[in-house]
């Protein structure tokens, strides 16, 4: 029996912050104190609060230690584990109240969350199937295989109201029904695929689920396979996620060893095998038909629909494709029932949604909230607000396919319908917070640079349209555009939306349209006044030295292009023809005497 358990976050955020070395140091320190058999060490998936990583939690006390360093391990072992005293200096402090919080569940960050898809993340060791099984893992698969008919499984998923978490929100049960009804060819083959090609910049929900609870996805895929009558599955995962790839591979091997994958699962005669395929960094492969083309080993270009994948998908066979987070809900729905799931959320959007909270927010990390929670709750209560006392300007959802939610709509309940109504989309769950220092035209330009690069080039509206859109945006941010350009740009947006072949092109203009809708005055300021109100667009900025200058020469010494001149103890001057607007002078000035206009 272990008397204590030490959970160390092994998610990518904490891992990059040396949590692996912290784990090793715990091993050493426990051995040095003869505690190896008394204390269990577990490397878990993501706890969610990446901002204060690396995170260590010690049970049974549930003490939540944040920003732990390798050098702190000795003290944690000697004080907490040997003497039974909390190491107060390392306990998590609430950003606003400065209050020390002992347990994870007491923090504001966790209080308003409801964890369904993330239920095991940060709780179990993802590399040990026994821990998953101990938390009801594979119970749903057993129930489905022994007590339910395939159609009953689909009926439960339909009744739960589960919708695709990858972005578009298509009802999952309906998708499965179409594929079940589809007639297979003479080979009888149908495929189950999992979209783990999380390409949306700033989103890491799927990665965290695969890293923290890989068996949940495997179990759900097996359930889906049973429901539609398939015996082969593929997980298409980004090569950029090495930890997730390794954990899902370990999990597949373990499930095979236990007879939960492979031939004749649990002696029921049901076969299901699973293969991992790596993506290679193409955003368009998140689109379902492009993903399938990519698994086929070709350039990941989308195909026109119809025929829909439910009838003619991977290798031309009937196929379902669901996103990681969608799958992570399935086993819970089977076990707890459709009514339980449908009791959470809003009228048309049931259950919870995971968001990757990033950008200008105190608690960057992973949060799971019931659908219908307001943006205000997410940003102010869970997220801890905007750092450095800055003002909230907008939140961006849906990545390059989405739009922004401006400050005056902060009380809108987040669900599929509401977000669509205000010109954004749910998307896969990236939620980037922006403050007054972010220029909305620049953000739109950032996303267009992305979609222009990632356009596969197959259809003209997207390939040429995104390039032209970006040209307009470059013209605006460099102060060379006219109001006519603005009108033309808007028309082009609608043209691309209506004519592009796949989701990438059809949604590519969204960041522009949405910023135009809420921040048109910023576009006008760039065009008419030749000013960037947020002070981001370099071509429209100029740096000046005010009378507060003491002549300390620091700025002149730091200027990379020698654009600043002036004698000691006299006011300096910036030569605007030489200035490259890098801002180094302003960052270094101790008297606040340099301003950008």
């Amino acid at each position, binding site marked *: 029996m272990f008397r204590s358990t030490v959970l160390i976050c092994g998610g*990518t*955020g904490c891992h*990059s*912050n040396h949590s692996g070395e912290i784990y090793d140091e715990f091993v050493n320190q426990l051995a040095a104190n003869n505690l190896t058999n008394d204390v269990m060490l577990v490397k878990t998936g993501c706890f969610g609060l*990446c*901002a204060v*990583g690396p995170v260590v939690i010690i049970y049974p006390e549930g003490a939540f230690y944040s920003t732990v360093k390798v050098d702190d391990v000795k003290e944690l072992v000697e004080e907490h584990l040997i003497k039974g005293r909390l190491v107060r200096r390392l306990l998590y402090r609430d950003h606003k109240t400065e209050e020390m919080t002992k347990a994870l569940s007491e923090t504001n960050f966790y209080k308003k969350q409801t964890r369904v898809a993330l239920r095991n993340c940060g709780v179990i060791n993802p590399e040990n199937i026994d821990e998953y099984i101990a938390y009801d893992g594979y119970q749903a698969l057993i129930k489905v295989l022994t007590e339910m008919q395939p159609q009953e499984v689909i009926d439960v998923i339909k009744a739960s109201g589960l919708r695709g978490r990858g972005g578009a929100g298509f009802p999952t049960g309906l998708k499965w029904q179409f594929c079940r009804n589809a007639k297979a060819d003479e080979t009888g083959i149908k495929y189950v695929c999992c979209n783990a090609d*999380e*390409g*949306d*910049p*700033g*989103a*890491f929900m799927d*990665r965290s689920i695969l890293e923290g609870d890989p068996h949940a996805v495997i179990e759900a895929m097996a359930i889906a396979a049973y429901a539609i009558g398939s015996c082969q599955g593929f997980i298409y995962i980004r*090569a*950029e*996620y090495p930890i997730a790839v390794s954990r899902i591979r370990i999990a597949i091997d373990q499930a095979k060893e236990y007879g939960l994958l492979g031939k004749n699962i649990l002696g029921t005669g049901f076969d299901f095998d699973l293969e991992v*395929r*790596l*993506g*290679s*960094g*193409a*955003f368009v492969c998140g689109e379902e038909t492009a993903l399938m083309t*990519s*698994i*086929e*080993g*070709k*350039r*990941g270009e989308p195909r026109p629909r119809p025929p829909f994948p439910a009838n003619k998908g991977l*290798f031309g066979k009937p196929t379902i494709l669901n996103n990681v987070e969608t799958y992570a809900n399935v086993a819970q729905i089977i076990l707890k029932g459709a009514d339980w799931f449908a009791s959470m959320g809003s009228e048309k959007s049931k259950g919870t949604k995971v968001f*990757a909270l*990033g*950008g*200008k927010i105190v608690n*960057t*990390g992973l949060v799971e909230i019931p659908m219908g929670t307001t943006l205000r709750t997410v940003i102010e209560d869970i997220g801890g607000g905007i750092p450095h006392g800055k003002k909230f300007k907008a939140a*961006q959802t849906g*990545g390059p396919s989405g739009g922004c939610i401006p400050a005056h709509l902060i009380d809108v309940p987040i669900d599929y319908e509401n977000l669509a109504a205000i010109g954004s989309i749910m998307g896969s769950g*990236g939620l*980037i917070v*922006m403050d007054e220092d*972010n220029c909305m035209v620049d*953000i739109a330009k*950032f*996303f267009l640079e992305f979609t222009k*690069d990632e*356009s*596969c*080039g197959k259809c003209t509206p997207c*390939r040429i349209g995104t390039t032209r859109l970006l040209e307009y945006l470059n013209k605006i941010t460099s102060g060379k555009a006219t109001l006519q350009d603005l009108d033309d740009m808007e028309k082009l947006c609608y043209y691309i939306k209506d004519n592009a072949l796949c989701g990438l092109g059809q949604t590519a203009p969204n960041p522009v349209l949405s910023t135009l809708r809420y921040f048109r005055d910023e576009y006008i300021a760039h065009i008419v006044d030749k000013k960037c109100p947020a002070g981001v667009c370099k071509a429209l900025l100029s740096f000046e030295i005010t009378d507060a200058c003491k002549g300390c020469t620091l700025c002149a010494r730091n200027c*990379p292009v020698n654009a600043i001149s002036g004698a000691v103890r006299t006011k300096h001057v910036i030569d605007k023809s030489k200035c490259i607007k*890098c*801002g*180094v002078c302003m960052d270094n000035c101790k008297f606040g005497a340099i301003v950008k206009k």
Partner: protein
Amino acid sequence: MAKIKLTKVPFAGTPEQAKQLEERLEALKSVPGGLMPALQQAQDIYGYLPIEVQMKIADTLNVSLEEVFGVATFYSQFTLNYRGEYQVSVCLGTACYVKGAGDIINALKQKIGIDSGECTEDGKFSLVETRCIGCCGLAPVMTINSNVYGKLTTDQLDGILKEYM
């Protein structure tokens, strides 16, 4: 679509690498859709995908070189360029971008003296802009080979690069 830049460094594969590639390709011959895994494994072996390697893959898997080249240039993870001893990758995901990753990449271009996608003449450093690597909590982030540097500011760069000089 990104522009294709071709490497100027001559191909210098070893017999061991050739043998390794041969073995892996043999195993992939019968796998449906085996071209992607083949390119991924070839890049693991050589670090990049020179035309010589692409020709070998085309021959073994019995697909045209045109198709191999088409796939190799479609995906951003595949590189036709020689990679430096130290690969400096700057994340340009949204979270990093709003926190100043643009300044970081510009400063690095100046400090290392190459554009992104290029390699220094001595083969020491190459610089790439990457898509979101998923540690948005640490934004802005860069990696040098497998070392991760988070919450970066431009004034830290000299100190970090010095470790690899």
